[in-house]
């Protein structure tokens, strides 16, 4: 194998990088058939890559073997107040012919990122075993999963005894505070240890009122014995930060944006009912695919969603230095 030469990524690499990205997307689509086939065409992949490359603070590396581009990794910081001193490598932000080359590319690119004080690194990676292993051997662990599934034409919703599903109303917003804060509470605890600040009651109340008023979310509240104990929220996929471009299915897709059940009501079947009710709603609305995401360190979520048919087809990997 000839030597790998590494240089800073530059405009002149975009054409060849788009070829690599299109080829990687084809491999990705073999693993996740809901992805859009048009990005297997370099001419379609290139604008996505170039758009990303023009983002503020973007930098990265290109790898050559015998004068031919064989890989690239580019990344840029996202808001520090949410992600800390970070760099994100988005899904179009990397592609390699040989998985192991991703390690050299990261090593070359990350030198600058760390020098600039950005020590928390995030990478969105297709679930190709060799590629995931290469990132794993760079000290990255999995933090989040992006899940994909088809929407069936017919879904049966079986409600557990004593349960019902309703839409929220502003009049009962005070009863929804606990449900509204439950996911943050859960993810603050071990083993997620989310560093996001917990919302105050007032912030939760305001968010409920704004959400109900806006009417853009299909909100399904789960009640048990007359008390709200769960909430599932479905929106059009355009509302999601990640499911666009290479990561968006090639058909009408909705995004399961939020789902939580209060601790004392978990494991009772209500979450399954709310998921099925959401799928039934999606089918009625003409959606053919549903996407969602979850923290893999959230043990409950990481076991629940794959059982609901969601395939973890994009992995968010994370490394914090030190």
């Amino acid at each position, binding site marked *: 194998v000839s030597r790998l030469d590494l240089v800073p990524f530059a405009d002149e690499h975009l054409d060849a990088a788009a070829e690599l990205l299109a080829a990687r997307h084809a491999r990705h689509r073999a693993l996740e058939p809901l992805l859009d086939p048009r990005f297997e065409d370099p001419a379609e992949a290139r604008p996505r890559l170039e758009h990303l490359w023009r983002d503020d603070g973007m930098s990265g590396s290109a790898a050559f073997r015998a004068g031919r581009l064989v890989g690239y990794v580019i990344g840029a910081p996202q808001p520090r107040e949410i992600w*800390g001193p970070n760099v994100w490598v988005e899904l179009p932000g990397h592609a390699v012919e040989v998985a*192991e080359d991703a*390690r*050299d590319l*990261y*090593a*070359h690119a*990350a*030198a600058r990122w*760390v020098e600039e004080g950005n*020590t*928390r690194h995030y990478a969105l990676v297709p679930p190709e075993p060799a590629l995931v292993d290469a*990132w*794993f*051997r*760079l*000290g*990255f*662990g*999995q*933090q989040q999963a992006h899940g994909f599934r088809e929407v069936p034409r017919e879904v049966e919703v079986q409600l557990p005894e004593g349960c019902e599903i309703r839409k929220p109303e502003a009049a009962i917003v005070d009863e929804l505070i606990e449900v509204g804060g439950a996911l943050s509470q859960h993810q603050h*605890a*071990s*083993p997620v*240890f989310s*560093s996001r600040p917990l919302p105050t009651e007032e912030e939760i109340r305001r968010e409920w009122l704004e959400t109900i008023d806006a009417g853009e979310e299909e909100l399904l509240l789960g009640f048990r014995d007359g008390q709200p104990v769960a909430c599932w929220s479905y929106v059009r996929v355009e509302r999601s930060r990640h499911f666009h471009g290479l990561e968006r299915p090639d058909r009408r897709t909705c995004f399961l944006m939020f789902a939580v059940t209060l601790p004392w009501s*978990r*494991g009772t079947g209500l979450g399954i009912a709310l998921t099925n009710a959401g799928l039934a709603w999606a089918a009625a609305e003409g959606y053919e695919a549903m996407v969602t995401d979850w923290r*893999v*360190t959230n*043990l*409950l979520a*990481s*076991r629940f969603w794959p059982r609901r048919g969601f395939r973890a087809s994009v992995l968010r*990997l*994370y*490394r*914090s*230095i*030190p």
Partner: protein
Amino acid sequence: VARVEAVPFSDEHLDAAAALLAARHARHREAEPLLPELADPLSAVEREWREEGASGVFARTGYLIASPQTIFDGPTWMRVGIAGHAADGDPETVRDLYAAAAKRWVDDGHTMHAAFVPSFDTELLDAWFRLSFGASAALATRETAGEEPYDGGVAIRNGTREDYAETARLELEMSASMQPSPSFSDVPLQTHDEVLAEWVEGDEDEYELFVAERGGRIVGHILLYRRPPDLRVPEGSIDLAQASTEPEARGTGVGRALTSHVIRWADEHGYPVMTTDWRMTNLRASRFWPRRGFRTTFLRLYRSIP
């Protein structure tokens, strides 16, 4: 809904934990026959448990213990040792055990976590990966027989005390090479005098030093160490504890020549097994040692919160 009912680990759990460890090690030995028999699993678990500051959890199907470890005044990691955990059946159990144990570690201010995990168990590694742990180091082993000499354009000889200043310099070069990307080691670098003092004060009976010379200069060294046996180090084996090549000479065959030399030396001197370790984020090392026939036995996994 808790899948695993975990309670704080205490002395009363030692026997059951030893049985779980013995079963794990038996599975591990099926995959890697060079691992030694574990004659006394109770002592192995107890050693982890008696470490200062150790804490952990126990469940019917598994246990997890860690203790704070500090290297050269660097950061303190809450580290699960090689005998610090075992689970019976579903590898997913380890995620529940970690969730239960790590709460206290983080409450106590320990946000850097490490765990040595048997590398044969890919499902177990995946369970840790899905706890956001990445690979940071490897422990490995190989047989010593059958190594052909490799001509790296160097003369290899046994090292002497007169070489210590040079080998201390090379050791420091090795440590320094862990500081840039992608290792980003935050272990503070020792001074040459500190490293040299360790070389001078070391017990020579425990070590075998080999140096490689090119053009009359020492350009590489390997230090073999008679490491005390444990559940990954067989009795009568020898550990390749240090290997370093002058930065300008890396990739020119110095390491290959030294490695083939010491493997042959070990074979001829009655050491049938050689162990070693490397930083996984050291790209060169992580590619070099597997090509020299070393098979990974444990991966050291690491997670920093946040």
